[in-house]
Structures are given as structure tokens and as C-alpha cells.
């Protein structure tokens, strides 16, 4: 029983980072109707930079630089999306394809600059003991950062004019343009915000389970799974989706084979894709 609780608490630790990665994914989905496959790569980039700059200068500077680099990377894909938008008549798949290219690009950048070794930092050498369960203080940090970010994203999306415009232009781009909403600028800012969130998530992953240059795609998928488990349309759901996946993953890693446990987020995604809402036959719901 204790064992199960301990696995679950470790799952929460991991799940918070997945939940944080779900933010940028659902945000971009809300704002642009596409999925950015490079989100995990921003996180890896931010984590790697945070580790190396942190190691040679100081951790706080490292973290800030890492997050900044994440934002810059997402600004790059944001500009690409604007350039594509002009040519490709808004076909969402083209951006997915471009972001796949960008993910591999960043993976190779990280490999070239920082090498093959895993990136990880675990500054806490002690554990909290809560009712016999050992919990790393990092869990506390993750949960607090996660909750703060949920609150911030919620306020931004639902309590500011920026958020209202983003949601409006996602619903109907043409109507939004006619209403004078600067759709392109909004898209771009949504990408930047996604990069910021992914960067923060990357730093937390660095301080939690760590990663290596090739972790990007797995992180993207974990975040995507988190985002869709309870429905793509809201950052809160993504956060709890992340927790759910993290817990199931650590429990199965604890009781079964560690390598195979990383299949868990994938299974979640696949189940949601096949059984999820809107999974009926036919194009119902699409405006004919």
C-alpha cells in the first residue's frame, strides 16, 4: 500500500511536468487549430541550456536563459507559421509537418551543442517524510509552479481582452479579421506564450526526471496525451490529464517493466483518439 502511494506521489511529480506541457499544446490548438510537434523540443532545449548555463554561471541565470531560449525557439516556429499561413491557405497539416521538421532540427542542435549524456539536476538531497511516504521537495516546487501557471493561463485566456481575441479568432478567423482583430499578431503571441510554458516545463523536467537530446518527441506526446485525455479545450483539464498519465506511468513502471511503462502515455492518447468524443462516423459537427 505504501509502495503504491509512493509510486503515486512520484507520479504526481512527473505528471505535473506533463500537465505543464499540455498547456502550450492546448493553447496552440485553441489559437491556431494545429498541433505543434516541437513543443517537447523547446522543453529539451530549455532544459539543456538551463543545465549548462546553470552549471557554469549560476542556476537562476541558467533557468532564465533556458526559458528565454525556449521562447526564442517558439518565436521561430511562430514566424514560420505566419509565412506558411500566407502560402498554404491555412492547411493545419502543413504546420504540423513543419513543426515535425523543426523538432528534429532542434534535436540535432541539442545533440551537437550538448552531447548525448542525459541532462538532469537534483539539488534536493533530502526527502520530506509525510505519513511514512518519502516525497522529494521538488514535488512541492512542481505543484506550486504548476498551480501558479494554471491560474495565470486561466486569467490570461478568460479574463483579458487578449484571451477573448485569441478564442474569437480561433472560432472564426474570417469573422475575427472583419471585426478588426489582429489575427496574425495574436497567433504569433500564442506561439511565444507556448514557448514560455514549454520552457518552464522543460526546466522542471530537468529538475525532476531529467531528459536527453532525444526526449523531445516523447515529451510532446506526453503533453499531447495530457491535453486530450479530458478534452483539448481547456488548460485545467490538461493539467489533470497530465497528473493522470504521470501516475499511471509511474505505477506501471514500478510494478512492471520500466521501459514499457513509457508506452502508457501513448496508450492514453490512442484510446482517446479512438474512443473520444466526436469519434462517431461521419462529418457531423462540421459546418456544411
Amino acid at each position, binding site marked *: 500500500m505504501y509502495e503504491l502511494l509512493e509510486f503515486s506521489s512520484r507520479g504526481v511529480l512527473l505528471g505535473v511536468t506533463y500537465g505543464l506541457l499540455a498547456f502550450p499544446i492546448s493553447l496552440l490548438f485553441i489559437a491556431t487549430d494545429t498541433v505543434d510537434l516541437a513543443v517537447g523540443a523547446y522543453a529539451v532545449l530549455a532544459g539543456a541550456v538551463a543545465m549548462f548555463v546553470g552549471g557554469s554561471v549560476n542556476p537562476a541565470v541558467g533557468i532564465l536563459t533556458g526559458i528565454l531560449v525556449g521562447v526564442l525557439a517558439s518565436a521561430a516556429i511562430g514566424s514560420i507559421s505566419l509565412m506558411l499561413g500566407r502560402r498554404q491557405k491555412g492547411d493545419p497539416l502543413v504546420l504540423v509537418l513543419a513543426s515535425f521538421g523543426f523538432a528534429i532540427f532542434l534535436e540535432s542542435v541539442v545533440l551537437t551543442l550538448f552531447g548525448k549524456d542525459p541532462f538532469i539536476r537534483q539539488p534536493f538531497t533530502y526527502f520530506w517524510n509525510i505519513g511514512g511516504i518519502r516525497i522529494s521537495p521538488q514535488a512541492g516546487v512542481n505543484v506550486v509552479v504548476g498551480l501558479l501557471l494554471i491560474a495565470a493561463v486561466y486569467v490570461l485566456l478568460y479574463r483579458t481582452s487578449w484571451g477573448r481575441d485569441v478564442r474569437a479568432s480561433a472560432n472564426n478567423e474570417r469573422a475575427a479579421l472583419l471585426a478588426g482583430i489582429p489575427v496574425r499578431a495574436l497567433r504569433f503571441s500564442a506561439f511565444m506564450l507556448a514557448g514560455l510554458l514549454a520552457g518552464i516545463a522543460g526546466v522542471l523536467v530537468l529538475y525532476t526526471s531529467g531528459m536527453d537530446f532525444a526526449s523531445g518527441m516523447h515529451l510532446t506526446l506526453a503533453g499531447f496525451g495530457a491535453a486530450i485525455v479530458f478534452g483539448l479545450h481547456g488548460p485545467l483539464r490538461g493539467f489533470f490529464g497530465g497528473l493522470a498519465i504521470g501516475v499511471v506511468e509511474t505505477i506501471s513502471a514500478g510494478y512492471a517493466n520500466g521501459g514499457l511503462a513509457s508506452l502508457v502515455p501513448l496508450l492514453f492518447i490512442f484510446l482517446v483518439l479512438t474512443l473520444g468524443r466526436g469519434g462517431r462516423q*461521419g*462529418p*457531423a*459537427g462540421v459546418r*456544411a
Partner: protein
Amino acid sequence: MSIEVEKIDVRFGGVTALQDVGLTLQRGEVLAVIGPNGSGKSTLFNAITGFVDIASGSVAVDGKDMAGIPAASRIASGISRTFQTPRINPAATVEDSVLCGFHPHARISFWEGLLRPPAMSRTEAELRRRRTRVLEQLDLLGFAEQQMGELPMGIVRMVDIARAMAAEPNYLLLDEPAAGLSKTEQNVLIQQVRQLAKQGVGVLLVEHNFGLIRRLADRVIVLDRGKVLLRGTADEVSKRPEFVTAYLGTSVQ
């Protein structure tokens, strides 16, 4: 042999687009649906063809309940439709576009497409002959090799109608077919619809031009805010005061 729509409701989130709507479309008759913008005419088409789900009520075609039958199968079993804004591939030629309309008759499986047995070449040749005939009927032969993106709206609409006719449906649902057509094109359209009705095709028609409805429709249904306001012949309907208020737009503030 008819389409029977009974008491259907269609909702989009909070919006009720259709409420308690019923109609019967016999084969061989022309039925017009009119109503102000947003009254649910296109939604009625979508409900019959399975493009939207109905919340309650039923749609039956030739006595067969359509519940759970996907849109594509409904089309393939003999209900064709056009869209209010024609859905075209601007790069495709007119003849290729119309050829796509034959899909329900092509009966070519994936394997035949891949291996191209002689039987398939024969079917293809036959489809091309039939395509020429349809294009001829709608006066479109002159445009056969042009790209859809290069054509004026009226022609695009006629091509769309040709594509729907190509499937040789038992029922044809036309959503504002005459919008943007010239007088001559309208006449070709009227003549074709009459011809189809005479051959036993049931035609359901959304149209704003009442003059055209008078010339064409056997009966008229007036929708207003998702409900049936009036039924009757064009003459009967046009004399009713409710029609005048609803249709001349006072209810569309």
C-alpha cells in the same frame, strides 16, 4: 416512394436550428423550402443527408429509417445534394469534377483501381460517355476542359448541379441553385429540374427567388426560426400575411 421527415429537432450547442420540422417529398415532385436567413433551411438539408445529427424525430427514405446511416451511404443510396457555397477544387477541370459525381456508380474497388483489369477500363469509358451527356444537358460542354477556379460563379453552380445529377439520384437536394445564375442559365436550370421531376426524381429546393419558385415548385414550405410557418402551393403561401411578414424580413431584424 418518398422521403419522410418527421418532427426533427437539430441543435448546435445552445442554438436550436430546427424544431419539430416535418415534410414529405414524393418522387417526381418539386418541393421548395423558403425562409429568412438563418431559419434552418440548409440545416434541414444537412439533417436529411446525415451531415448533422438530429436530436429527435426521424428521417426515412423509401420507408427505411436513416438513423445511424452515415452521410456517404445515404448519398450512395440515391440522395444527392449541392452546397449553398459550392465546394470546389479550383485546380480541377470541369470534366474531372463531374466525373467525381459518378462515384456511387463506379463500383471500382481499391484493388481494381490498383491493378486496372480490362473490366475497369470499360467502366471508365462508359462513365466518360455519361459525363459528356450530363455536360451536354446542362449546356456545359464548352467549359469541359477549364479549371473550376477560372469560372464565374454561375457556371461553378451549374457544374455542381451536374456533379449531383451524375449520381442519377432518386432525390436531389439543391441549396440555392439559382443564386448568381444569369437568366439563360436559370432557364436551363428550370428546364432540367422539370425534366428530372418528370423522370421521377424528387427535388427539394432552397430558393430565395419567388418568381422561380412559382414556375417550378409544386408545393412550398416556409421555415421561420427553425419551425414550419406555412405549407401550401406557391400561390396559397404568397397570399398569407404571415408569409409577407416573415419573408420580407421583418422577423430578421
